[in-house]
């Protein structure tokens, strides 16, 4: 049986879908059989982030309603033949699927894949409840901002009440220059507040926007800092001990030189 992991956040726009695309692709790079499930019904996005939007025929709701077989709905990735996407329906709403149907779908997928990554919608309503229904583990994505951290805390409490204890934290879009100036909460601050184990830190990186524009996850790009951060998380998911990325280095040589000659960051 594979691992069913839900990626969630509470607040929207903190990088859930990007994280699912990168972690899924990263696990596939290591040879794992992976399926990514887009549980954000009505606001389908994982397909475009992965560059698979032109291949969708059936979706999650079709599988739930029995309009097609699972095999027909799964879309094979362009790069890896053991990486698949189960897309969300775009024309239905969150109530088109029940938690019981999601549990059944996750169970079926876990029989065939090493990892089932569920991309949760923002919010705490039914879409969220569906997304977590079939999961045994949870990853919480947040950014170092008050609203995102507050929502993450709420989600931690809710996950606990649904029996998903000890979720792991991914802190996204850290800006080392702002952390250094005392204008952004650091890893230790957020971990102290949320009091859950940290799985990884992703530096804020323009390469993420560029890779999303192209529909090619940044994790594939060996020269990209955020991609490296995702590759590190993948290795930790696989049980390897990998130290957290040194964010002061994450800025590159130019920034370091500027800092040394006293020009400072922005």
């Amino acid at each position, binding site marked *: 049986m594979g691992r069913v992991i839900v990626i969630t956040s509470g607040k929207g726009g903190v990088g859930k879908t990007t994280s699912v695309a990168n972690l899924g692709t990263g696990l596939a790079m290591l040879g794992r059989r992976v399926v990514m499930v887009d549980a954000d019904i009505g606001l389908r996005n994982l397909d475009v982030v992965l560059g698979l939007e032109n291949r969708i025929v059936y979706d999650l709701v079709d599988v739930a309603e029995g309009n097609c077989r699972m095999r027909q709905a799964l879309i094979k990735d362009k790069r890896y033949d053991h990486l698949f996407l189960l897309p969300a329906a775009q024309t239905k709403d969150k109530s088109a699927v029940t938690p019981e149907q999601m549990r059944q779908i996750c169970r079926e997928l876990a029989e065939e894949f090493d990892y089932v990554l569920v991309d949760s919608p923002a919010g705490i309503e039914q879409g969220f409840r569906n997304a977590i229904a079939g999961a045994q583990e949870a990853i919480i994505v947040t950014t170092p901002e008050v609203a995102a951290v507050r929502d993450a805390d709420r989600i*931690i409490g809710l996950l606990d009440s649904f029996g998903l204890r000890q979720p792991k934290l991914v802190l996204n879009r850290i800006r080392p220059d702002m952390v250094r100036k005392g204008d952004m909460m650091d890893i230790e*601050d957020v971990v102290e*507040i949320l009091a859950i184990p940290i799985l990884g830190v992703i530096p804020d990186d323009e390469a993420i926007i560029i890779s999303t524009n192209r529909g090619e996850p940044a994790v594939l790009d060996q020269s990209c800092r955020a991609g490296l951060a995702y590759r590190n998380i993948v290795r930790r998911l696989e049980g390897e001990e990998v130290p957290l990325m040194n964010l002061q280095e994450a800025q590159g040589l130019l920034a370091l030189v500027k800092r040394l000659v006293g020009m*400072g960051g922005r």
Partner: protein
Amino acid sequence: MFDFLSRYKYNEREGHSKDVAKERLQLVLIHDRTSVTPELLNVLREEIMAVIERYMEIDYQGLEIAVERSTGRRAALVANVPIRRVKTGQK
């Protein structure tokens, strides 16, 4: 070493903005997590005081009862009850 750079936006009175963020978050999360309403806290305060007053005279000026942050994700009910004097002849 280049601390003078960070002084730019550092506000002497308010401190670093991330410390303000952290403090505000910790405060708001205590209430988010415990859902202890001010009304509940008031009732609790009165009942606790009624018990203590049977044995002690309390200085109401310095009295503090609040839900505060404890270890990890736990909250703690913290009470600071200054005593004026212990009532004698009480069992």
